[in-house]
């Protein structure tokens, strides 16, 4: 099974770039399972114990919404993975998963995933980056579905608005470290490396109502809210829905820096804000670095993406329930 799995794993995006030994290491951790057509793999709200890699067949993910209604969110085919959100944040599964056809999967447990992510070596850093890319792609898919539900053309602020807001940021000193350490986002992170991360960018104040990221344009920087709040919105025609709120300890504007695509949402300061600003080049250094500071940074991005994916399901549910 291990040789067969290792061969297949070479085609799975999550493990792309891993050498033969690395693939064999992963393959030895996997359990192969066959799921009958129509079988429920897990229900929304169940404890997350494993992620599944689809070998053949297909799985569908659905969201239960009020009124006993179910909304199909997406399907996963060969090479795709499902179930990583709960595995990464320790929360329950966000959606129910069912086999569309007779499906073969490889299951990777929580402990095994943690073991793959734990080392401070190239393979673990690579996996962290690919997880970030995978979760970003999933976030984009969720937002695209939301946009489709809204209909109409994007009608938010322009890239010029974001450039102006970036130019008008009022540079300032760092926040009190005792305050920053109390944020849940930074709990459990190595103190010295965290400080390295928090001093790797610059700090700036921004007035309320400024557009820092424009949907459809690349982001100038990745931001981390230290104080205040930044709302992430989709605007279509006359409709505007908030898909996230980046309060203290939350990052935004990173999607286009992770995968090179356009920003999937617009980010506007809802409150005046104090921000950690990581311009494109600094983001790239941290994202592709392989030291303790980069590890903290990748942890922060991963936590942010997982939280964002959970949060983005809420407007999905509200929209579905209102239809």
């Amino acid at each position: 099974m291990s040789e067969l799995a290792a061969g297949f794993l070479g085609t799975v995006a999550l493990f792309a770039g891993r050498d033969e030994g690395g693939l064999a290491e992963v393959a030895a951790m996997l359990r192969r399972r066959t799921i009958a057509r129509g079988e429920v793999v897990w229900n929304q709200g169940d404890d997350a114990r494993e992620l599944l890699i689809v070998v053949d067949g297909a799985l569908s993910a659905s969201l239960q919404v009020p009124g006993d209604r179910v909304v199909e969110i997406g399907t996963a085919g060969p090479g795709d993975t499902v179930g990583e959100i709960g595995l990464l944040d320790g929360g329950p599964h966000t959606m129910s998963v069912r086999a569309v056809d007779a499906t073969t999967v490889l299951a990777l447990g929580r402990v095994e995933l943690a073991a793959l992510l734990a080392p401070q070596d190239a393979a673990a850093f690579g996996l962290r980056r690919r997880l970030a890319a995978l979760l970003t792609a999933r976030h984009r898919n969720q937002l695209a579905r939301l946009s489709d539900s809204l209909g109409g053309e994007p009608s938010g602020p322009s890239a010029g608005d974001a450039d102006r807001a970036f130019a008008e940021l009022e540079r300032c000193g760092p926040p009190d470290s005792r305050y920053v350490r109390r944020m849940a986002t930074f709990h459990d992170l190595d103190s010295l490396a965290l400080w390295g991360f928090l001093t790797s960018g610059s700090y700036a104040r921004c007035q309320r109502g400024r557009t820092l990221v424009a949907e459809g344009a690349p982001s100038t920087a990745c931001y981390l809210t230290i104080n205040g709040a930044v709302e992430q919105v989709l605007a279509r025609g006359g409709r505007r829905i908030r898909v996230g709120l980046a309060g203290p300890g939350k990052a935004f504007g990173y999607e286009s820096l992770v995968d090179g695509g356009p920003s999937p949402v617009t980010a506007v300061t809802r409150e005046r804000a104090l921000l950690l600003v990581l311009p494109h080049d600094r983001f790239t250094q941290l994202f592709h670095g392989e030291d303790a500071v980069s590890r903290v940074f990748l942890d922060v991005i991963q936590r942010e993406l997982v939280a964002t994916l959970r949060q983005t399901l809420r407007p999905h549910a509200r929209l579905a329930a209102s239809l």
Partner: protein
Amino acid sequence: MCRILAYLGEPLPVQHLLYDTDNSLVRQSYRPRMMNTFLNLAGFGMKAWDPASLRPDDPFSYRATTLPSFDRNLRFLAAKVAPTCLVAHVRGVTYSDEAVVAETNLHPFHFPGARVVLAHNGHLREFRRMRYALVEHVRPELAQRIEGTTDSEWIYALVLSQLDDPFGLPETGELADAVAAALRILRTLRVERGIATSSPVNLCVSSGRNLVATRFSFDYGWYPPEDEMLETDLPYVSLWYAVGGEYGEAGDGWTMTGDDPPRSVIIASEPLTVDHSGWLEVPEYSMLTAELTAAGLEFETRDLDV
């Protein structure tokens, strides 16, 4: 952090809301699942309107500083009363010798003769710096009814003061406007005094026929140094709702049945069930309005920008 609960719709036994579900309001007092930095042990209060009761415009009233989980009187009452509207609250205060645990500080607030009640989940930081500036915005006949020491009771008096008739029965639109106007006054007074720290104001306001709720915070994300409430307030104070036909036990859990138009709504700081799938999170900076009409429940969510 306190917990609020409001219900408007088909007659519903109070015990379903307070006791029966696996994350009922009473459970949230001693085992909160969200905002769980301290327990809510400073008392319980409720107002419940039953059209079949004597003087149906006057709600059943109950409040006690005892723990609701051990309050047999409340359990007996909850099993007997099936209101069409309810506002309930469990109070949480910091473990501090400055906290005043007293009946006069229990929500929902309800001045004698008034038709509107209010419960609050949140707190106005630095309230002492603005308390007496509020006097000029509160009608004298209401100011003299303030009995307790909370910021919430002042918010109540301020909301009532924005109504054409503070002792009348307001339409839903007027009540919503009064709540927004009260928040604007608070905003102005805060700005004048340079108060710019996070102050959550999740409100449930009701006349028994309609309901207005807010999920809102002034200056969210800004905190004073060495703040003892920081961990509580770093996340935006939560508020959820379930809207549909009627709330009841079905299969292995409690759920709001689907119905269009809806006939009932529950608004609560936390979902009343551990399984959240039947609940929707109220967006931050929002106001909800609900009104019982002959055609069903009119329900609306809107952005609240004050």
